[in-house]
């Protein structure tokens, strides 16, 4: 029986979809069978990041309305034999085309066949968000170290705490820029975790290669030499239950690294 994890943030543009794609890829690289579900109906782009957009025939709404079988709508990622699948969202419906009950049923139907189901949540807290969290067992909150993003993450955590079937959410801080941290211009990692009071599962550095990879239609996680890729792979291992220390964000003076290490050793 697999686990359904919703990846959400509240604010748009902090990297939910990139995180979904890369975590899915990383988990598949570790030999787990993964299905990604894009619930951003009307504004899908997980398919683009995965490089699968030309192969969409059926989508999420077709499945929940019974126009096709689940396996007909799933797109297999050719990098793997039988490990990574995508259930795309339709581009020509809106968020109200699906309701929470349908999502719950869909995900519980799929759980026996996969180790992990990653649900990419749309921005906002409306119907799309409620659909995305309806069938989830766990939640991962993605935020950047900026006040607006952290504030929205706080709101989302508050909403998730009301959902009793979901375990306490875990946090990914995305796009950390080492030089800004050093100059005290950004909220630092301690600042964010102290504010949100939830467990940190990973920190992703900011790297231009992420954009390059997205344009090449291949998630960065395939590149074994990239630090972002490494960070995602480490998060995947933490999801599997391994204890992997936080890798330091490059380019900082020693003071910060020791602070980071100290922070993680307390956990």
């Amino acid at each position: 029986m697999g686990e359904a994890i919703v990846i959400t943030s509240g604010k748009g543009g902090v990297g939910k979809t990139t995180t979904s794609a890369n975590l899915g890829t990383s988990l598949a690289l570790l030999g787990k069978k993964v299905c990604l579900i894009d619930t951003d109906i009307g504004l899908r782009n997980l398919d683009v990041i995965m490089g699968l957009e030309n192969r969409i025939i059926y989508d999420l709404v077709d499945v929940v309305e019974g126009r096709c079988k689940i396996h007909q709508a799933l797109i297999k990622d050719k990098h793997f034999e039988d490990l990574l699948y995508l259930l795309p969202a339709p581009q020509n419906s809106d968020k109200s085309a699906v309701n929470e009950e349908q999502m719950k049923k869909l995900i519980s139907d799929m759980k026996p066949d996969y180790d992990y189901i990653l649900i990419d949540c749309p921005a906002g807290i409306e119907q799309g968000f409620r659909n995305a969290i309806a069938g989830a067992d766990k939640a991962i909150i993605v935020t950047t170290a900026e006040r607006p993003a952290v504030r929205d993450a706080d709101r989302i955590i508050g909403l998730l705490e009301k959902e009793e079937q979901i375990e306490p959410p875990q946090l990914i801080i995305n796009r950390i820029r080492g030089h800004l941290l050093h100059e005290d211009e950004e909220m630092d990692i301690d600042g964010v975790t102290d504010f949100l009071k939830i467990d940190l599962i990973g920190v992703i550095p900011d790297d231009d290669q992420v954009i390059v990879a997205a344009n090449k239609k291949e998630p960065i996680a395939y590149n074994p030499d990239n630090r972002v890729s490494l960070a995602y792979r480490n998060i995947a291992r933490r999801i599997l239950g391994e204890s992997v220390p936080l890798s330091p964000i490059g380019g900082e003076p020693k003071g910060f690294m020791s602070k980071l290490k100290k922070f993680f050793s307390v956990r």
Partner: protein
Amino acid sequence: MNKRIQQNVMIKGTKDGFMLHLDDSCSFSDLLKELEVKLSANYQFQENDPSISVKVHTGNRYLDEKQTKMIKEVIHKKKKLFVDEMISNVLTKDEANRWKDENQVTTVTKVIRSGQVFEVPGDLLLIGDVNPDGTVRAGGSIYVMGQLRGIAHAGYMGNNEAIIAASVMKPAQLRIAGQVNLSPDEYTKWGHDLECAFMDEEENIIIDKLQVLKKYRPNLNRLEGGL
């Protein structure tokens, strides 16, 4: 056999008016009748006498609103008498529950997050933070064992005596009863430790160190417990 007649209404003089003790074992109609007789028989009022305040003690009898009004009417018929206070030994369950709710401290371990509103009828002891855009509201005082960064509204049903205290005071807004205090535009990085807010006689919200509370709100020390 000297059968003593049970008196249902007893009149006692005190220094600030007099007190009517109403027996609680007779029927209400008997009581009303006797009250009327007693008040008209014993006293002759002069035109220029000052009004006399009367306290009514109903013992263990519970009077509903209608009955209270009837008793008051009987007394008010005597021109120089007015009812100052009705005292009773009994409370309804609702009143007792409300009294209990308003006087107890609710303890919660929680982070009040953006968009959440947490409300209690009495005092609130929050073991956790109030994040920006989160609101805590209490009928009594609010004590935050954590960082107060959102909105705290103490005494929201109009209790000017309520206070707000926090381990780290960095609120967006403090409200006590009907008054609002907006935060300064900028806090120092760590805010202010162990501070409290209360209302002075001119209804201004004062924010000061915790030590001053002992002077302004001595009633906060509740050593005897609930009652």
